[in-house]
């Protein structure tokens, strides 16, 4: 940051390239040390991540332990929300044929909707095809292990994430009037989508979660673990709440939010 003050600062040199190269290095380190989606962890393992002095977090892990059996981590690469959402949901579909049929139908139709919004057909199809290939793994091989392999294969996992990002972007653009006041800076909804939603590695906020649950009509629960209070705060994202018929609103799955990061929780 002090490059300008440094006597060796060379204005003809392109320092941005160095900064970008350094960012790439950090990304590589994260990729080497964290699986895109991990195996199941117990809370006895998770609690060890916090020092003995960190009473608030240790207490909150105990709270989670009283309600959840396991935690599955996702890589901290800015795509964690999408990866956690995708994995947790498809894992749930392994045991819910009716919901799988409903989702398959939404997923199929979404391609034409996105093309209708102006996404280029040629490149969109590339992502949609891979997305559908991953979704259909719910049928074949139809195992958690199959999904685990797919979500740890960058070619499949990252393409899946891209398509979820496009679905969020599509929903925001289709409902721009409802979201425009929740966007920071003097940006249009379209600008927000191209800067904060569509590019890989851009982190998710409340607005992204609301959009994805609405776009796919899936209710989810998020446990917020921060320094406030004694227990985690549960927050339900229910896309059906504005409808008169809110029969099926049990959350499909629960994610854990620790500031800046999402993982998957498995109830007792």
């Amino acid at each position, binding site marked *: 940051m002090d490059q300008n003050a440094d006597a060796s600062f060379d204005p003809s040199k392109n320092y941005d390239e160095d900064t970008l190269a350094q960012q790439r290095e950090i990304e590589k380190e994260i990729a080497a040390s964290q699986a895109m989606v991990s195996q199941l962890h117990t809370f006895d393992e998770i609690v060890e991540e916090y020092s003995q002095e960190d009473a608030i977090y240790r207490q909150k892990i105990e709270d989670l332990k009283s309600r959840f059996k396991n935690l599955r981590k996702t890589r901290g690469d800015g795509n964690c929300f999408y990866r956690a959402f995708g994995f947790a949901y498809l894992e749930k579909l392994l045991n819910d044929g009716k919901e799988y049929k409903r989702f398959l139908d939404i997923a199929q139709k979404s391609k034409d909707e996105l093309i209708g919004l102006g996404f280029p057909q040629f490149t969109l199809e590339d992502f949609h095809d891979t997305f559908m290939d991953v979704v259909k793994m719910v049928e074949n091989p139809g195992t958690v292990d199959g999904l685990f392999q797919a979500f740890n294969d960058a*070619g499949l996992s990252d393409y899946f994430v891209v398509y979820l990002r496009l679905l969020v972007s599509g929903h925001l653009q289709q409902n721009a009037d409802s979201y425009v006041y929740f966007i920071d800076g003097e940006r249009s909804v379209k600008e927000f989508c191209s800067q904060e939603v569509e590019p890989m590695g851009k982190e998710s906020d409340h607005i992204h979660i609301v959009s994805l649950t609405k776009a796919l009509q899936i209710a989810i629960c998020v446990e917020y673990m921060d320094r406030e209070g004694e227990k985690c705060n549960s927050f339900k994202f229910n896309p059906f709440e504005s409808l008169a018929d809110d029969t099926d609103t049990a959350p499909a799955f629960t994610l854990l939010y620790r500031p800046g990061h999402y993982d998957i929780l498995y109830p007792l």
Partner: protein
Amino acid sequence: MAGSALKRLMAEYKQLTLNPPEGIIAGPVDEENFFEWEALIMGPQDTCFEGGVFPARLTFPSDYPLSPPKMKFTCEIFHPNIYADGRVCISILHAPGDDPMGYETSAERWSPVQSVEKILLSVVSMLSEPNDESAANVDAAKTWRDDRKGFEEIARVTVRKSLGL
């Protein structure tokens, strides 16, 4: 990862061959390596670059299209948005956040649904309408702003050189 990049690059190459955009030819330098392309860009009509044929290299990362390629002209070209060594510096070649030139927030950025064709079309419009707000070549930006006739004269010399005249 490189597998999906290769598949995508092969599909884009096919698309560009079947439906080439006006004034652009592009494809792999060598069909054994789809991550290194050569492009020929015709100077747009009614601009000082008209009549020129400018060769450039595109280098794709192994995680393309999640990350954008890099592009570099391999000929002499004096332009506000091209570094003296030929590197092209326009917003679509950068993801948001990778902000070497402090582009305006509304400028079009790289995202995985963009394509080689979109990049090359942006380069053609860059030739027609240099952006002197975020200049990679400060001399060229100054000349473009303060001495338009001089800029056009340099461009015409470049055009002739690009044709080997």
